[in-house]
């Protein structure tokens, strides 16, 4: 009985979370132009429009390029920072840790606005150069890369590094051949996180982007104000597409991490 109540509760909450997305998904495959209206016939037109419309296509690829580019920079900076801070003196480490925490707790509106005021207004960097935008997105995501690598560094076995030195490797070589490979899971999940943060961002983008460039977020917000029906329904298709991709990626990562866990468990048993 008690278990039934629990299950009903969970199903109810899941329904609240997923019903809007699923309704939109159903409507995205039809000719309907408003949700709740008659479904009309089955159609792929929205999906076709999504990639046929040059503006939409440019916006999607622009968003992806920005996310991957800024995530790459953030991953390099964050990894170097985390490794460097890990081996620094306590005071310096604390300083970097606290500065790193600022964008994490700060509101994105404030982060975006402050970068805009410094770079665009005070230093006169042109918005159209994309520099403020890329820097903004890097500020947003690098701290999370740093945070996802930090725990991996703590688990590191320092004697491996020392063994490499004893066997004649230079410190730099030992770092790249011994320490870095052990950090790869942390670096990868940091990179993924950086990509998703950049994809989801609205505020930093609005305050730093060139006026002719749009990411998914800024585009959707503008599109809801105007009412071009074909764009509106094409965005339903986009939402469905993203939902499917997210489900696949999350499922894959889950399977991978389960495999890794199984391997580790086996290794533990042997040891």
């Amino acid at each position, binding site marked *: 009985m008690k278990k039934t109540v629990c299950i009903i509760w969970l199903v109810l909450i899941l329904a609240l979370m997923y019903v*809007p*997305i699923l309704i939109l998904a159903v409507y995205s495959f039809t000719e309907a132009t408003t949700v709740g209206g008659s479904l009309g016939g089955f159609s792929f037109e929205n999906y076709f429009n999504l990639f046929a419309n040059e503006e939409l296509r440019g916006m999607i690829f622009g968003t992806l390029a920005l996310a991957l580019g800024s995530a790459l920079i953030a991953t390099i*900076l964050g990894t170097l920072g985390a490794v460097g801070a890990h*081996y*620094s003196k306590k005071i310096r480490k604390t300083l970097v840790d606290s500065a790193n925490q600022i964008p994490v707790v700060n509101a994105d509106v404030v982060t975006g606005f*402050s970068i805009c005021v410094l770079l665009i207004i005070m230093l006169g960097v042109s918005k159209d150069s994309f520099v403020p935008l890329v820097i903004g997105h*890097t500020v947003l995501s690098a701290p999370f890369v740093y*945070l996802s690598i930090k725990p991996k560094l703590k688990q590191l076995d320092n004697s491996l590094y020392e063994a490499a030195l004893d066997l004649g490797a230079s*410190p730099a070589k030992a770092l790249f051949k011994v320490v870095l490979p052990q950090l790869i899971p942390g670096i990868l999940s940091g990179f993924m996180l950086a990509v998703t943060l950049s994809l*989801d961002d609205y505020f930093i983008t609005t305050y730093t982007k060139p006026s002719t460039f749009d990411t998914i977020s800024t585009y959707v917000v503008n599109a809801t104000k105007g009412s071009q029906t074909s764009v509106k329904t094409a965005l339903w298709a986009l939402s469905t597409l993203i939902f499917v991709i997210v489900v696949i990626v999350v499922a894959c990562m889950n399977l991978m991490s389960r495999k890794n866990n199984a391997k580790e468990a086996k290794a533990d048993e042997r040891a």
Partner: protein
Amino acid sequence: MKLRFNRSQLCIPYALFLILFVIAPLIVIIYYAFTNGQGQFTFENFINFFSSTNTIGTLIYSLFLAAVTTVVCLIIAYPTAYILARSGFKKQHVLLMLFILPMWINFTLRITALKEVLALIEGNIARYTFLNSVIGMVYDFLPFMILPLYTCFLKLDKNLMEAASDLGANRFMVFLRVTLPLSVPGIISGITMVLLPSMTNYVVLDMLYNSTYIMGSLIGSYFSAYDWNNGSMISLVLLVIIFIITLVTNRFTDKEENSGRAVL
């Protein structure tokens, strides 16, 4: 002479990056907040903010909206996280994933979906602006409340609850005196994940046709009006609020878990 390589030097690029693009912008914000358009020192922006009933009203409205959002999130997320963590379902991990997966879908697209459904139910959604804003915020931030609570419940030592009931506490008392106090760190980090964004995420309100301003919208409107000085003052006020929240919540949570947003 060969430069000696030291591992701590790897930190230099990131430290410079933080100084230039995290700390410097904040200093610039403080400078702009206390100067006028001609660059002269002034308290005008400060007085503008605290003497105008509009801005103070906005501050109160955002605090209220954020508080209601946080409470609703907590009411929904607390039992959900508890059931997920402690009911011993077989595929517990997969189940949790279902609850936090929406976090990775672009929030503007999710709000679009929500808007369509609300329009379907309510007819004219412009009539219930406050209600819709709360629904929108909860819809957006619920996963961020569930996750820290779940991690917290997962770590709870079952023996403590059993000991309490062995010692004669009924189930309600066990919850009140053992489970609830032990889940306080989870509650607190959940609150920090939801409270601040729901004070500033004005896009949710915009998309749901709520034209009332929250703190974020003020920055947005000063940005559109090229008023960097007053915009900086609002940013500064928000920074102070954030600083206070962080100060209070740091007393309750372990440092290691502050990165709730960073779970993948």
